[in-house]
């Protein structure tokens, strides 16, 4: 079933909004875990965009790529959380602002 352009645009809008929310969250929040959560949200926004284009062009490539994306997101989650645990052990805080050694 083909998708009209208007509907495509709506899906893209959703993706964009998700991405924007994630972005703003990443830039604004101080909690490390919430920071990471925002990046996950950005991922999801991109995933939605991929699906929408896949459906629009009538190919399965979009969906296939999203599978890859999810795998990568998961791997990244593991990595990031491991780092966060280590960082927490150093400073005993989840505040992103507490690491400023590279200032200047």
């Amino acid at each position, binding site marked *: 079933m083909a998708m009209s352009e208007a509907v495509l645009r709506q899906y893209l809008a959703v993706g964009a909004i998700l991405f924007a929310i994630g*972005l703003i969250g*990443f*830039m*604004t929040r101080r909690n490390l875990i919430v*920071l990471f959560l925002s990046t996950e949200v950005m991922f999801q926004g991109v995933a939605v965009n991929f699906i929408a284009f896949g459906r629009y062009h009538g190919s399965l490539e979009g969906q296939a790529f999203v599978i890859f994306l999810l795998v990568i997101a998961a791997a990244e989650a593991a990595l990031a959380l491991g780092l966060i645990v280590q960082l927490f052990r150093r400073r005993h805080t989840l505040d*992103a602002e507490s*690491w400023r050694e590279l*200032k*200047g």
Partner: protein
Amino acid sequence: MEQLFAVKYSYLIPLLPLLGAVAAGFLGARWLKDRAHWAIWITVGGSAALSLALLTGMIRHVPAEVRERAHIESSGAIDAGESLSDSAQMAYAFRVSASKHVYTWLEAGKFKAEVGFFLDPLTAVMLCIVTGIGLLIAIYSKGYMAGERGYFRFFAYVGLFIFAMTVLVMADNFLLLYLGWEGVGLCSYLLIGHDYERPAAREAAKKAFLVNRVGDCGFALGIMLMYVTFGTVSYYGNPRNPVEYGVLIQAATNVSLSPWQQSAAQWIPFLLILGAIGKSAQFPLHVWLPDAMEGPTPVSALIHAATMVTAGVYMIVRCGTLFVGNGPATMTVAAVGVFTALFAATIAMRQFDLKRVFAYSTISQLGYMFAAAGVLAPVPAIFHLLTHAFFKALLFLSCGLVMHATMGELDLRKLSGLKRVLPWTNRLMLVGCMALAGVPFVSAGFFSKDQIIAAAWYQNKLFGLALLVAAFLTAYYTFRVYFRVFQGPTVLPHGAETHGQGDQQHGRREPAVMILPLVVLAVGAILAGYLNWPERQASLGRFLGQSPSLCLSHTLASRYGVDVPPVPFGVEEDPDKKVRDAMNVLHTNMMVASGLIAALGIYVAYLFHRKYRARSEELAMRFPSLNRMLERKYWVDEVYQGAIVEPLRRLGRAFNLADRFVIDGIVRAVSLTPQIGGFALKLTTQRGSLQGYAVLMLLGIAAILLIVLW
């Protein structure tokens, strides 16, 4: 003439001393050390031998033509010089001269500068003086400079000086002359400041060079004007081809000069005079010479008595054709000379430093030479140059012996009766003093000075009178020194009594290596006078008259109707018997007058400084302001210091401040801009927070997207 050995190898005359200087300079420190004088003895000796060969070769070349011409003229058949055709006359003028082209120095468009030599009687005489006296002084210097630091450096510079001076004298164009001119100025600086650890010597060297430079500036402008006016800087160019005439011939024949060229040519002599005034220490550029006495005494003898300072006189005589007919120019030369002669003589009367007296004496005697050149009597000018070289070098070198014996004390108020301590020096100095004072017949100075006074009197009675007065003062101050220092009770400065009696440093007080050259000079100082006895066929004057400079000048003078006696031009006597007799009477009168004046001067000096020393000092104290004026050399130095040196120093300091604060400030301000930019960037963008960096990244991507999509 070109076939003469001395002419073919004439390039050796400057080259040998240059090689000697290079050898002494580069090998002297490590290898030659206190044998460095050999490099100069051998090379300058070679030059001297060649110069002598050149002179004798030329002399042998002269007689036939001269006798023939004299015969033709004395038979009344032809007027001197008038009816010969121009080209024959030109050929005659150049008969006893040779040109030697060495190489082309540089070429720029139409301008060509050559290294070439022009050898004529004038050059030959100058060369013999320079190399001969240079050699004698080099021999003397071995004794004088023994044990001094920088022994090899001294000889290297002396060699360099002889090179430059010979180039000056042998040059065939003004550019090469200027090279030699500058070269001797440089060597003067180097040699005066030889003992550069002494501040006085450093200052004196700088002063000499800078004052010289003022004159050199005028000279350079003169050469440039010459090129612009005449299209060449060569002296004579190609005398056979009117299109290629050099400067001096063009000036003589006025070959198709446009009106503006002719008026420009009127100014050239004045610029040259400026150069000569600087080099020959005439008023007002005389101030460097007395200070130059800070240099070693052989330097004073060689450079500031016998050779370098005479370069100005040589140049004016060489450029005779540029000056003849230019009334204001010759008047300037004569006036400057006469004034300086009198001016310097008055100062010398009241100087107490032995060398300073002789320095002012040199300035005064150079004034005589200038006066001679200015009244169009070039032969007496060169003759006096020759005799002066002998006796002034003798006097200075004797001073050197005195200095050695008195451990450097030269104040004649502190010395007396040295004839017992320095017997030979006493005799030699007496000969020199007699020559300087112009004692009749036993000294060369008498003849040469007398001829100048006679020539000056002929042109302008006032000049002649002034020169006579100066002669009286000369005799007085010369024998003031002699009677004070050598006669009377023996007084030596403390510590000098035993000095020199077999001590390691100086051995004997009057070592042979220093006395023998002085004996030669003394003999010259006595006998050289007989070289230019007016009536004799083979006199110096007649020889010099074969030089194109004198020959053409004389012809030019007759053409302009300038009243010049022929003999001072080295031309044979006037055929008119009445004129000849008048000249003879003038000369005899002048000889008697100068003889009397010299005797009077010596007698006054004897009274004041030998017989009644104490009373003469009291008498002098009665005129304190006059004394002060003379002792302070008319405050010329102070005037220069206040009007020129200090303002320039202040200007220099102001510029220094401007440079440090304004210009460097601007540079520093410019360098601050990137620094501030960087700092601003650092403060704003690198805060160390992760999220901040994320924001910046985002902004960057946004910017790129904007650029790409727009």
